[in-house]
C-alpha cells in the first residue's frame, strides 16, 4: 500500500509540477554582458540575477551540492560556426559546522565561503570571465551566453522529479550579445 502511495505521489508530483503556473521569484536572468578584447582572448563581464527556488535552497541546506553551469559560445558573423565555446561550472555547498556557504569553481583552486546565501549569489551575480579565443579576425561576432542549474548533476534520485518540477527550472536560456572585432 505504501509503495502504491509512493508511486502515486510521483505522478501527482509530476502532474502538479507540470501544472504549476503563476509568479515565480526564482530563476536566472542574464542582464548584461560587456565584452572587451584582450590578447588572444575576450574579457567577458556578465551581470545576472540569480535566485534559487525554495526547493533548491532546502536541498542545498540538506547537503545537496548544486552546480551552476555558465556556457559561452562565440559565433562568427554568419552565425553558422562556433568559433569557441567555454563552459564554467560553479559548485555551491553548505557547511553545517561553520554554517557557511561555499562557492568554488570547478577546475580551479578558488574557494570562497559566505555566511549568507545571498552574499554567495551576489558574488556570483557579477562574473568576469576570460575567454581564450586565440587570434580573431576582424569582423562581427556574437557571444551567446547561458547560465543554468545543472539538474543532471543532482543526486540521482532527484533527477527525475527535477526534470518535471518547475521549482528546479533555473535556466536563463541563451542570450545573444553581438560585438565587433576591429582590425
Amino acid at each position, binding site marked *: 500500500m505504501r509503495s502504491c502511495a509512493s508511486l502515486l505521489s510521483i505522478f501527482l508530483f509530476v502532474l502538479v509540477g507540470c501544472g504549476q503556473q503563476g509568479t515565480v521569484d526564482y530563476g536566472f536572468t542574464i542582464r548584461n554582458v560587456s565584452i572587451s578584447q584582450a590578447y588572444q582572448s575576450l574579457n567577458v563581464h556578465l551581470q545576472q540575477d540569480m535566485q534559487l527556488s525554495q526547493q533548491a535552497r532546502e536541498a542545498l541546506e540538506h547537503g545537496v551540492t548544486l552546480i551552476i553551469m555558465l556556457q559561452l559560445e562565440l559565433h562568427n558573423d554568419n552565425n553558422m560556426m562556433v568559433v569557441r565555446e567555454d563552459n564554467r561550472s560553479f559548485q555551491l555547498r553548505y557547511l553545517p*559546522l561553520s554554517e557557511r556557504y561555499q562557492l568554488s569553481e570547478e577546475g580551479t583552486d578558488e574557494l570562497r565561503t559566505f555566511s549568507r546565501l545571498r552574499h554567495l549569489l551576489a558574488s556570483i551575480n557579477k562574473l568576469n570571465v576570460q575567454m581564450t579565443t586565440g587570434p580573431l579576425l576582424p569582423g562581427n561576432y556574437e557571444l551567446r551566453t547561458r547560465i543554468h542549474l545543472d539538474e543532471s548533476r543532482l*543526486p540521482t534520485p*532527484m533527477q527525475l522529479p527535477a526534470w518535471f518540477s518547475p521549482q528546479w527550472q533555473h535556466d536563463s536560456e541563451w542570450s545573444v550579445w553581438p560585438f565587433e572585432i576591429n582590425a
Partner: protein
Amino acid sequence: MAFRNKRVRRFVLRVIPVVVALVVLLISLMLVSNVQQDPTRFSQPYVWVLVLTIFALLVVSAAIFHRVITLTRKVREHAPGAMLSARWVRYFLALSLPPVLIVYFFSAYFLTQTVAGWFDVGVEAALADSLELGQQFLENRKLEVRNQVRRLIREIDNPGNDADVVRRALLANVSSAGPIELSVMEADGRMMASANINMLADLPERPGDYALLQALDRGEYAAAEPMADGILRIRVIQRLPFNVPGGQGYLLQAIYPLPESITTLTSQIEKEYHRYQNLSYLREPLKQSFILILSLVLLLTVLLAILAALNVSRKLVTPISKLAQGTREIAAGDLTYEIQGETRDELGFLVQSFNEMTEALTRASQEAEHSRAQLQSQSEYLETVLGGLTAGVLTLDNDQKVVTANAAAEEILGMPSGFFAGQSLSERAEAAPYLAPLANLIRQQTGRGPAEWQREIRLQAHGQTLVLLVRGSRLDKKISYAGGMVIVFDDVTMLNQAQREAAWAEVARRLAHEVKNPLTPIRLAAERLSMKLKNKLGEEDGKMLERATGTIVSQVEALRSLVDAFGDYALGPQLERLPMALDQLIKDVVALYQHEEQRVNFHLKLVNGPPGLSADSGQVRQLLHNLVVNSSEAVADGEEAEVHIRTRLINQAGKKWLEVELSDRGPGYPRAVLEKPFEPYVTFKTHGSGLGLAICRKIVAEHDGRITIHNPAIGGACTTIILPLTQ
C-alpha cells in the same frame, strides 16, 4: 540459402529485443539490489536505464498489442488453434501473475522498510548533538582567540605609517599555537603589513566583504572558516585603536588554527552529519525511485511473461492449428494438403502421421476415382446400348422400384422421359392405369416362379391395344439390387397385327377362291332346276320349288357378297392417292342417305378441304360408308340414327393431321369389339360379316393414318380417324 538467411534474420529480430529487455531488466534489478550499498550513488546509467526500460516497455507492449489483436481476430474468425492459443495464454498468465505480484509487493515493502531503516531518531539526534558540540567548541575557541587578539592589540603600540615597523611587531606575536598569521589591513581590505609563522607562505587571504563590513560596523568579526586550503581555521578581525590621517582606520586580522585532533573530529562530524542530512532529504525521492524501478521491472516482467505466453502458445499451437487446418482442407476435399515444418517431438510425429494419412487418402481417392470412372464408363456404355435397343428395358430393385428405364421403354409405353425414375410400377400404374397389366405381371413373377420368364400382354393405351412380349429375369443375389429384376419387352402390336392380317388375308383369299368358284354353278343349277321343273310340277309343288330355288339363289348372292368382301380384305394396297376435298366427299356420302327410307340424321361440322389431303377417294368413300352403316344399323328398328361427323386440323409429332370423328347416340361398341376392335369376324350385328371395322382399319393404315374407337361417357360409339396432310 535465402530461406536460411530469412530464418536467421527473423530469429535475430525476435530474440534481440527480448535480450535487450532482459538486460535492462537485469540492470534495473542490479540498481535495486545496490540500494543498501550505496543508495545516493545510483550511478550515471540510472537515467538511461529508466529511458531504456520505458522504451523496452513500449516495444514489448506494442508486440503484445499486435499479437493480442491478431489472436482476437483469429478467435473471432474461428481460425484453427486460436481458441486453444487464447486458453494457453490465460492459463500461463494465471500461473505467472500471482507469484510476480507477490514478489513485487513484498519487494516494495522490503525497500520501503529498508529505506526507513536507514534513519534513526537517536542517530540523527546524536549527530546533531555532535555537530552542536563542535559548534560549541568553535564558539569557545573563537571567544578565546578574540580575547587573545584584544590583548595583542593592546600590546601593539601605534606604529604609524611605517609598514616595516608594523611587520616586525606582528612577527613578534605570531606563533605556532596561534595566531599563525597576523596582518594589518586598511578598511577596504588592502594589506598594509602581515606576518606568518611560515616564512614561505603566500600573501594573507583577503577577508570577505561581509567580514570587513561587520568588522568595521561592530569593531570585530570572528568566525570559523574553511580557508583556501579547505582546512577550518578561526578568522578574527578587530579594529585597531589608531587611525591613519584621512583614512577609515586599520584592521587587524588574526588566523588561529584548530588542533589537528579537533579538526579531524569536527571534519568527520560535519561529513557524517552532511551525509545523513543529505540521505534524509533524499529519503522520499529514493523510495519513489526504487518503487518506480520496481514497478517498471514488474511491468516489464509481466509484459515479458505475456509475450512469452503468446509466443509459447503460438509455438505449441502452430502444429495443432496446422493439423486442424489440414483436417478442414481434407474435409473440403483437398487431399493434396500437406503440413510443412515438422518438429522432432510428439507433435512432429502427429504431423508426419497426418501427412502419411493424407497420402494414403490421396491414393485411395485416386483408386476410387479410377473405379468410379470405369463404372461411369461402363454405365454410359450400358446406357448407350440400352438407348440403342428398340426393346424396352426396365431394371427393378427388390422393392419393385424402377432403377433404370431406357428410352425405348418409355417410348413403347408412351411415357415422358423420367416417368419411372425411382418409382415402383404399382405407383406408376396409379398414374397411368393402363400399365396395370404390366405391373400385375411383374408383381406376380417377383420372388416366385422361374428365374426367367416370358409372357405376352395387352395394354389398352389411349384407345389402342398395345401388345407387349415381356421377358423377365431375376437379378443374381451376388450383385447389386439383389432380388430385383430386369424386364425386357417388345412392342409386337404391329407384328401381331400383321401376322393376324396376313393370316386373315390368306384365309379370305382361300375362302374366296374355294367358295366363290362353286357359287355360280350352284346358282345356275338352282335357276335351271327351277326353270325345268316349274312347269312340270303342280301349283303347290311349283311354288315350293320356286321358294327353294329363290332361297338358294339369294343365299348364293349373299355368299358372293361375303366372298367379295373377303376378296376386298385380302387384296393388297392398290391405292390411287390424289388430292381430294374430304368435306365434299363426306357431303356426297351423306347425300346417299338423305331419303325417306333412311332414318339417319346427320350433324356435320366440317373444315373446308382441307388442302394437303391426298387419298384414294374410292377407299375413303368405302371407309365412310362402312362407318355410317355401322351407326345406322346400331339403332333399333323404327328409331332414327343420329350421326355426328366432325373434321378438324391437328398437330401431332410436328406434323399436320386431319382428324375425322364420327359418333352416334346408339348403344356403343360392345365390349368384345372394344377388346379386339379391328379383328375380323368380331361383329355386333346379326348379319354382319365382321369385316367392316377390319376393312376400315386396313384402309386407314394404307393411308398412313390411325383409327381408334371408344364409347364416350355421354353414350354412343365414337370412331376417330387421323390422316396425314402434306405440308
